[in-house]
């Protein structure tokens, strides 16, 4: 008798598995949903519009970094230098504007340029020297961080010394009584745009294909080196956007920021279901991944859980979320 019941259970489970498999980002989405429900039950403060907006603000920086990190990981790369690029960029934007009185728009553009150039440097090292991205970015992480400390003189630049455009991402507008920052909106728009590009343009296909099988892509007539270069450069540009969000969020530019953001952004990407082996994944998943971590940290905090156990919970979360995703993917179409 038991076997029969087990059999039926298994087939139900299998059916759920199949259902979830149909849509790639549904695994992370389920995890997000479940955690939201659980935390809403634990604390009545959790599911208020204000708190939701807060979580969006809190994940804005890591979420933006995760967008850049996602396209790098899609090409079977990894970017340990993303946090360092972001901080360097934020310092350059803010310091140049504060010291030379450069207006906001050119300062922003300068920052975008710096981010892109840093990314391009990573890309050049990956494509020209043919080094594994892990090693390249482990190296440039140190280089960019040192440049940041050197250029900033380790001094924080205050928001009050900057043109207001640099702080725009931290400004809020009110929707139905809830304040939302432009930085959060920028993240959502960025994710949508990147998802569109990845899905609907030739470049997007080439990114997936390059990550899937580099040599096959090259033989198929894709300029893989150019694709990789453009991916790292775009990622650098996205990190510069993250820098802008960061400045808005803390209303200043701090050379101390972002030191753990590389692992945090990778965490968001892998929880979001993108494969570290390249070629499989989606940028929407990474946003969801960042939200999951944000929901956990915020929800545990509201529930009064000590930060120690929050750390542990994030560790367990990574393993559980990725295992679940793996399990869902195991079904062949």
């Amino acid at each position, binding site marked *: 008798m038991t076997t029969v019941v087990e059999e039926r259970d298994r087939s139900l489970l299998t059916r759920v598995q199949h259902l979830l498999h149909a849509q790639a980002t549904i695994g992370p989405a389920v995890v997000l949903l479940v955690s939201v429900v659980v935390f809403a039950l634990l604390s009545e403060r959790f599911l208020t519009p204000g708190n939701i907006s807060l979580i969006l603000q809190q994940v804005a920086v890591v979420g933006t970094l995760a967008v850049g990190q996602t396209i790098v990981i899609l090409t079977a790369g990894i970017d340990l230098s993303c946090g360092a690029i972001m901080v360097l960029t934020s310092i350059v934007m803010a310091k140049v504007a504060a010291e030379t009185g450069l207006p906001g728009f050119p300062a922003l553009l300068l920052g975008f340029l710096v981010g892109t150039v840093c990314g391009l440097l990573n890309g050049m090292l990956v494509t020209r020297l043919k080094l594994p991205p892990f090693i390249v970015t482990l190296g440039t992480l140190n280089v960019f961080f040192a440049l940041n400390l050197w250029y900033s003189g380790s001094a924080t630049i205050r928001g009050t010394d900057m043109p207001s455009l640099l702080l725009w991402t931290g400004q809020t507008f009110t929707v139905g009584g809830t304040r939302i920052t432009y930085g959060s909106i920028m993240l959502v728009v960025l994710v949508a745009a990147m998802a569109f590009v990845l899905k609907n343009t030739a470049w997007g296909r080439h990114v997936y*294909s390059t990550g*899937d099988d580099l*040599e096959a892509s090259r033989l*198929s*007539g894709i300029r893989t080196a150019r694709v990789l270069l453009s991916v790292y450069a775009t990622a650098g540009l996205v990190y510069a956007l993250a820098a802008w969000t960061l400045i808005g969020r803390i209303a200043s530019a701090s050379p101390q920021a972002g030191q753990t953001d590389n692992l945090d952004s990778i965490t968001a990407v892998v929880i979001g279901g993108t494969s570290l082996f390249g070629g499989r994944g989606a940028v929407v998943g990474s946003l969801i991944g960042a939200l999951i971590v944000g929901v956990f940290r915020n929800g545990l905090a509201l529930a009064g859980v000590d930060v120690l156990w929050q750390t542990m919970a994030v560790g367990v979360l990574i393993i559980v979320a990725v295992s679940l995703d793996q399990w869902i993917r195991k079904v062949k*179409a």
Partner: protein
Amino acid sequence: MTTPVLQARGLVKRYGKVTALAGSDLELLPGEILAVIGDNGAGKSSLIKALAGAVVPDEGEIFVDGSPVSFSTPIDARRAGIETVHQSLAVSPSLDIAANLFLGRERRRKGVLGSVFRMLDRQGMREEARRQLDALGIMTIQNPGQAVETLSGGQRQAVAVARAAAFGSRVVIMDEPTAALGVRESRAVLDLILQVRDRGLPVILISHNMPHVFEVADRIHIQRLGRRKAVVDPKSVSMSDAVAIMTGAMEPPG
């Protein structure tokens, strides 16, 4: 004498201490099927990789319709109308069949969606893929939107062959296209090769399968130790003589 569509002269390619090509020549005449045979490691794949722009030879020249060219990437060769099915297939498993067929030459939508937003014409490409697969009549893939990784080895091979046949405008090169295929699938590929030739496109076919080679080839290029040892006519040379030349057991006639 007719100008060869594709010609190679004195190609040399070294990998470290290994010399894969030691001054190899090749001539492909208009409308013919040229088979390339040779032992493992004779340099067949290296030769066609050079012709396909996948590797840059250390020495030697390549001519297309009599004019010298230099291919530094597979794209250059493709632009010259040369399509290749590589021994390692070169398909992208996570993409679907239509995406693989159009990989590197995607079509964009008409209007601003295409020109400004650079949107792909997915629907159009799927339909075109469907048409190509049907026209080639090699198999029954139900859905061009299926990911290549869900296909069997034989079906993948068919996708790669279909791509080359569909887009080749001057030369189609196939490196052991039937090696992993079953009897029926091999048959289909051979028919496809004949069909491509009948459309007027010359084909270079690399194969270890002598019956296949002798069935379809117009001329047979015998590669040995990185060089062209001989070119023979399958109608005047026996299979065992060809093999003997290939393995060095016999000197080529003339």
